[in-house]
């Protein structure tokens, strides 16, 4: 047992090579492009130029934060309600919750547009009722609504998972010790489901802050988020460098916030079940 076989010794080699070539090297190229000009000369210009994108960063962070907060407010009670059901119904509802996650984001956003668009279902309903049309697509509300709609399941599922792992005897103990159900919720359920909450926040915030399809479709082109900006820079060779700089800053921001968030939660809690 002390000697590892040839297979065991070298099994991870293909993956290691792959990871170096296609995970680490690409990130190094982001750094390289961020610090060079189009001719490959070293420069800080891309980074200093980022100050003109400050409002985009602020707007994206605000949108993503609001969407994450709404998801949490809607999602936490939902996860709690599901976790209180009988095991069979829980299983069924988890499938219901996962189904939208497997449907392409493009389709979900597009279907939301079918309802909210100017000529969409909601407006034709309003017109047939003799009311005025309301402009939804193209407003900041529509973009945030799109984020909430697209990413809500990613908030509910990890919270539900950490709640369902919770030992039911804690509830009994809390009741025995004189907690009413509201007090139990705040003093038992809430602290113990925190890892799921953290995981849910990350899973909603990260795609929200980096999206470009949602803002393109539901923002009607009137909102420029980080995702849109990055996407635009990579359509043209001459702006690759500034695009790389924006990506680099966004990546660092996200990795820092994820690392900070993970300090609050236990390592292997709050996972997601398939």
């Amino acid at each position, binding site marked *: *047992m002390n000697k590892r*076989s*040839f*297979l065991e*010794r070298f*099994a*991870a080699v*293909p*993956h290691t090579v*792959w990871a*170096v070539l*296609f*995970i680490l*090297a*690409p990130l190094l*190229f*982001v750094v*390289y*492009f961020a610090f060079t000009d189009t001719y490959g000369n070293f420069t800080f210009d891309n980074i200093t130029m980022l100050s003109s994108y400050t409002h985009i960063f602020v707007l994206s962070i605000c949108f993503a934060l609001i969407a994450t907060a709404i998801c949490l407010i809607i999602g936490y*009670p*939902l996860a709690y*309600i*599901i976790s209180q059901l009988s095991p069979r119904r829980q299983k069924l509802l988890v*499938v219901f919750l996962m*189904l*939208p*996650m*497997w*449907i*392409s*984001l*493009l*389709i*979900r956003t*597009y*279907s*939301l*547009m*079918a309802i909210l*668009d100017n000529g969409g279902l909601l407006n034709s309903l309003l017109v047939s009722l003799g009311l005025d049309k309301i402009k939804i697509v193209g407003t900041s509300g529509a973009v945030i609504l799109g984020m909430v*709609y697209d*990413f809500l*399941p*990613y908030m509910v599922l990890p919270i539900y998972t950490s709640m369902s792992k919770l030992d039911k005897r804690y509830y009994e103990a809390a009741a025995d010790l004189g907690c009413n159900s509201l007090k139990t919720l705040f003093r038992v359920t809430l602290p113990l489901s925190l890892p799921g909450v953290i995981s849910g926040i990350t*899973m909603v915030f*990260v795609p929200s802050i*980096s*999206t470009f399809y949602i803002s393109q*479709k539901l923002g009607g082109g009137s909102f420029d988020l980080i995702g849109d900006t*990055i*996407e635009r820079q990579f359509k043209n060779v001459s702006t690759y460098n500034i695009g790389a700089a924006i990506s680099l800053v*966004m*990546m660092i921001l*996200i990795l820092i916030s*994820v690392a900070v968030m993970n300090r609050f939660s236990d390592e292997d809690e*709050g*996972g*997601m*079940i*398939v």
Partner: protein
Amino acid sequence: MKKLSHVYMWVVFALLYAPILVLVLFSFNRAGSLNHFSGFSLYWYRELFRDATALTALRNSLVLAVSSSLIATVIGTLAALGIDRTRSKFLKGSLTSVTNIPMMNPDIVTGVSMMLLFVAAASVPFLPVRFGFTTMLIAHTTFNLPYIILSVLPRFRQMDKHLREAALDLGCTPAKTFFKVELPAILPGIVSGLMIGFTLSLDDFVISHFVSSPDFQTLPLYVYNQTAHEIKYSMYALCALMVFAILALLLAVNFAGAKGEKKQKNGGAA
């Protein structure tokens, strides 16, 4: 209170499903409008199947999903074995953290970073890098790998180590031990990893958007290009078909009982 909470739950679910149902319903609307429903028809479906680009995109998507998930499964399973047997804590830790990077990073950054790698590689003489199937295959395999490793690695950990020793004591070679004892034990993890990889690859838009070329389009890229400017009702039909396919797949997985695998701890969506 209990009743109220149930009402709340069903309202949220109804809102979650309403747009998708509208999309599916109106894909059968001959009129091609959201204003009135002029009767059930498969017109937009026929229209869709007349579009050769859509069919090519479907074929590309399937080829890419099958090949990238298979490659990732082979590399990822071996990696899980290697990580499980590595004694160096440092090696184990650094390998898992590097593997998890594509899962933590926003998809757009992963996509952009791979694009820059391929752009740089294309400028190297004698390196025949062209955007298209190869770059897509590399990118999809890369983002599938962490999910495969994450679903196989716990199986190695849960496995009774004595079984392996028994097999070795009874005269199995290490390779034979792997195929006769270990592989059956980790097989559920491999299967679920393969399926996760397949669906992720089929579903991916953001990363593909940056590493593909106009002559290699997948289904999500096709949808993106088609929905760029105007509403196309044949896209409703395509979306409805994709929803049906996913529903069938999810039901099949549930009935097959491949359950309870950790999909992801944390990570990239969309």
